[in-house]
């Protein structure tokens, strides 16, 4: 009896388990079907792909999160180092050795392979035949729709020239001769029109579906959507260019068991079921996945020829490395692609810059410094503060109208408690974090090293788009132009709308606040679409007037202008509404008197209206400046910092340091403190006396 109880508590086989994944569409449906049938106690939770890895890392490092999760194998190395995974025993299934090796380290298995994914070439059976070598195709005709926006998407073309992320010794090889050759060839294919320029993945897919381009290089995850639109879809191995076959990355999506799971045994059993033949069969047939279960291959091939074609087309892909360095690799590699393919930089310069940037990202964290001086300063500061408070308290005379302490604390207690807990604490923590660095071993004190590194623009040079000073310049220009435009347009419209004789002003008042009322992540993305180089309406309008379209995200100034347009559009209604409010409260007698004296409209505007309106707008302008200075959403969603971070503002830069790439939280915190300091300075010097902080 006791033994049975122990057994139950040790590994309750039907304990409710949570599984996180980022599958969509048919893959998600197949997973859910299979779970209902074979593992009803596992609850699948779909996560958005963007941000999934950050969310997983945050959860795992706090001992939170799911019992199991599905993720591409390339994070294995990092999670192993963080001891976030349980070691698994292989179930009685014959896995493809390549897939298996992707989830193992030193012949121990930390995940079970579920599906192999790499880019394949889609075409139409009735369509034209692919040229034997794309480099020999006639210029001017588009053959393959693909995005080359990321290193992952561009890798097949680079790899055909022999490029690999790491050299034989495992060092990053971003500026290798092979990368240079691959990038040169890729640029040649784009310049000759063989690959259409500037597509993102959705546009590439649309161009292929509409038949504008005969072939599409895309992942197996596109299969079901393509089948919906195309009856005679064909799948083949990636094409040949410059005499060599393209080699895409092969990723193995695997199920991992969190080391923090309270039901480790049950979770391991569930992982085995998920990767087992029964569930794999459902995933293959219903979800269109290429499963690594070898004994199923023949059967799947009979029931789903498309799946067999997918399997055949994925042969020879290059396994994505599991080195933790890979996480830092993507950003600089993407910058190199942007530099060459979109900004017109020379191949060698772009690659050398990217390699230097990568070296900077991989540079060791600042060394630990002794805590004693910092603790001493901290004690001194706290003591000083206490003395200050004490002296104020001594001088303080409570006015006789002040309510009793109990009443007063009812008034302000709840509000202050909430502010202290959830507003002040994070700020103080952020302040403290800026003196620390976060590495694999956790946090360690580094003193002012983060600040020095930021202010010296270590390894970058002041004019580099990623340096603090360059970003500060962009941020100041961004804020100044925006606020001036907001106030100018806002006051202008308010003056027009405020004319008493204007009958139809009411509908315009409603219409013109729409940009303020619609959530800005919707409208920012709408503007991004409008500025698209290929299909955006802005370029269509420019072209209809006989101009030529602008590649908005390829040039810093154009991208800055696009961000600016979006934010001016978003921000003018607030100022307009404020100005209307201020105009309504202006004394009308003065205006009447001026009119009687024969002052013209312009005179009245300059000498009476503006001098009274502008001071009334100051609080709104201060607020608007702070908002604009930290307008993270707009930059992040519209230009995304493109090209190569040159349109990032300080706050989006700080976000990247924290959540993209290496997780340099201390660095990001120091950025935040610097932003705070700048805004504080601004507040001190520009606020009217009574508002001064």
């Amino acid at each position, binding site marked *: 009896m006791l033994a049975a109880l122990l057994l139950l508590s040790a590994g309750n086989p039907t304990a409710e388990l949570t599984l996180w994944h980022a599958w969509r569409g048919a893959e998600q449906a197949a997973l859910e079907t299979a779970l209902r049938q074979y593992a009803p106690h596992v609850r699948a939770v779909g996560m958005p792909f963007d941000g999934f890895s950050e*969310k997983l890392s945050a959860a795992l490092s706090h001992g939170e999160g799911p019992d199991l999760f599905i993720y591409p194998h390339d994070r294995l190395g990092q999670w192993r180092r963080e001891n976030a995974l349980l070691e698994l025993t292989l179930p009685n299934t014959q896995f493809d050795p390549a897939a298996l090796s992707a989830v193992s380290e030193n012949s121990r298995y930390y995940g079970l392979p579920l599906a192999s994914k790499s880019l394949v070439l889609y075409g139409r059976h009735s369509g034209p035949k692919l040229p034997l070598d794309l480099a020999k195709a006639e210029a001017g005709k588009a053959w393959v729709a693909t995005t080359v926006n990321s290193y992952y998407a561009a890798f097949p073309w680079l790899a055909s020239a022999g490029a690999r992320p790491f050299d034989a010794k495992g060092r990053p090889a971003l500026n290798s001769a092979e990368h240079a050759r691959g990038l040169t060839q890729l640029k040649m294919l784009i310049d000759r029109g063989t690959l259409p320029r500037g597509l993102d993945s959705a546009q590439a897919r649309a161009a292929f579906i509409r038949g504008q381009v005969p072939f599409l290089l895309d992942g197996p*995850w596109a299969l079901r959507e393509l089948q919906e639109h195309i009856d005679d879809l064909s799948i083949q191995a990636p094409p040949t260019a410059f005499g060599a076959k393209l080699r895409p990355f092969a990723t193995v999506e695997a199920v991992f068991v969190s080391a923090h799971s309270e039901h480790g045994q049950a979770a391991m059993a569930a992982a085995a079921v998920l990767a087992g033949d029964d569930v794999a069969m459902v995933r293959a047939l219903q979800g269109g996945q290429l499963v690594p279960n070898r004994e199923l291959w023949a059967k799947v091939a009979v029931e789903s020829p498309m799946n067999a074609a997918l399997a055949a087309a994925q042969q020879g892909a290059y396994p994505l490395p599991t080195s933790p360095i890979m996480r830092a690799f993507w950003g600089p590699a993407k910058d190199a692609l942007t530099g060459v393919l979109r900004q017109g930089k020379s191949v060698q310069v772009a690659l050398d810059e990217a390699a230097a940037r990568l070296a900077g990202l991989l540079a060791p964290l600042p060394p630990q410094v002794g805590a004693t001086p910092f603790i001493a300063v901290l004690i001194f500061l706290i003591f000083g503060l206490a003395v200050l408070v004490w002296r104020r308290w001594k001088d303080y005379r409570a006015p006789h109208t002040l309510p009793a302490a109990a009443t007063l604390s009812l*008034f302000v207690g709840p509000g202050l408690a909430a502010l202290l807990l959830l507003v002040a604490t994070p700020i103080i923590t952020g302040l403290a974090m800026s003196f620390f660095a976060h590495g694999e071993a956790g946090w360690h004190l580094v003193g002012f090293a983060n600040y020095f590194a930021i202010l010296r623009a270590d390894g970058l040079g002041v004019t580099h788009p990623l340096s603090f000073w360059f970003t500060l310049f962009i941020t100041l220009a961004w804020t100044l132009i925006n606020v001036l435009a907001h106030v100018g347009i806002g006051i202008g419209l308010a003056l027009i709308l405020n004319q008493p004789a204007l009958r139809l002003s009411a509908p315009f008042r409603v219409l013109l606040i729409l940009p303020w009322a619609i959530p800005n992540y919707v409208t920012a993305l709408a503007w991004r*679409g409008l500025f698209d180089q290929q299909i955006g309406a802005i370029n269509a309008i420019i072209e209809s007037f006989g101009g030529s379209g602008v590649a908005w995200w390829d040039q810093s100034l154009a991208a800055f202008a696009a961000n600016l347009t979006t934010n001016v559009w978003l921000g003018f209604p607030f100022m307009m509404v404020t100005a209307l409010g201020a105009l309504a409260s202006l004394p009308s007698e003065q205006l009447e008197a001026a009119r009687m004296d024969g002052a013209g409209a312009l005179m009245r505007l300059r000498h009476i209206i503006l001098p009274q309106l502008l001071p009334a707008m100051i609080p709104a302008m201060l607020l608007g400046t702070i908002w604009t200075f930290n307008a993270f959403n707009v930059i992040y969603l519209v230009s995304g910092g493109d090209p190569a971070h040159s349109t990032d503002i300080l706050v989006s830069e700080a976000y990247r340091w924290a959540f993209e790439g290496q997780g340099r939280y201390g660095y990001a915190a120091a950025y935040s403190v610097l932003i705070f300091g700048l805004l504080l300075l601004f507040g001190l010097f520009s606020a009217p006396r009574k508002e001064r902080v």
Partner: protein
Amino acid sequence: MSRGKAALSYVVLVLVSVVTLYPILWVVGLALGDGLPRGGINPFPDEVSLEPLSGLLANPAFTTALANSVIISLSAAIIGVSLAASTGYALSRFRFFGADATLKGIILSQMFPGVVSSIPIYWLLHRCGLLDSRSGLILVYATSSVPFCAYALKGWFDTLPQDLLDAARLDGAGHWRIFWQIALPLAKPALAITFLFAFMGAWSEFILAQTFLSSPENITLPVLLRSYVGQFDADWRAFAAGSLIVSAPILALFYALQKHLVGGITSGAVK
């Protein structure tokens, strides 16, 4: 006003309105079209279909997220404005010890960017067992709206004539009664506007929601919508259709509160 001036005013207003509406019309067009990215100047698709809109409303994942967003944003706005109202009133009317410092702290807190704040808040919620729960997010949203709302409401309360409150005091009314029965009713326009701000902030926030929530029965609408448009797989039609639904309540609120909007938010500071 001369006819020419009126005509000119209308021309300017119509032009600005076109620029204002154009991006929004694209969202509408995308929501009603076939879902493939489309070019050109005309935002409307050749064939209009209401299927994506009705499909979303029939999708349990979407309706759950919609309900969550309504519950979370309403609760956060109500709690936030309640906390801010009493705090703002006290800051405006009672010169208690630390009132100045509190007000300064409130202004300062608006200058600190929230980029790394999610890390300590994550830890706090984790400690309190409130991660992946609606109440946790309500707490975070409510408090993050308090500084702005308290500041704006303090400005409004500052404009109330002291004589009025003193008279009530002489009649024997306690502080709470004065607050409840005199100050609050007079502050209705400002309360409406701060409520709108607090609600909007919670209704459109997605970064914290995405970080703190994970279960499908808890996630909010912005998180779900963002998940429709991933890097490798984007369903723009569903995103656009969802955007229309997301925008509707805010538009309704704006419309209902528009007469308070003008003057409600800054008049305290203006006067």
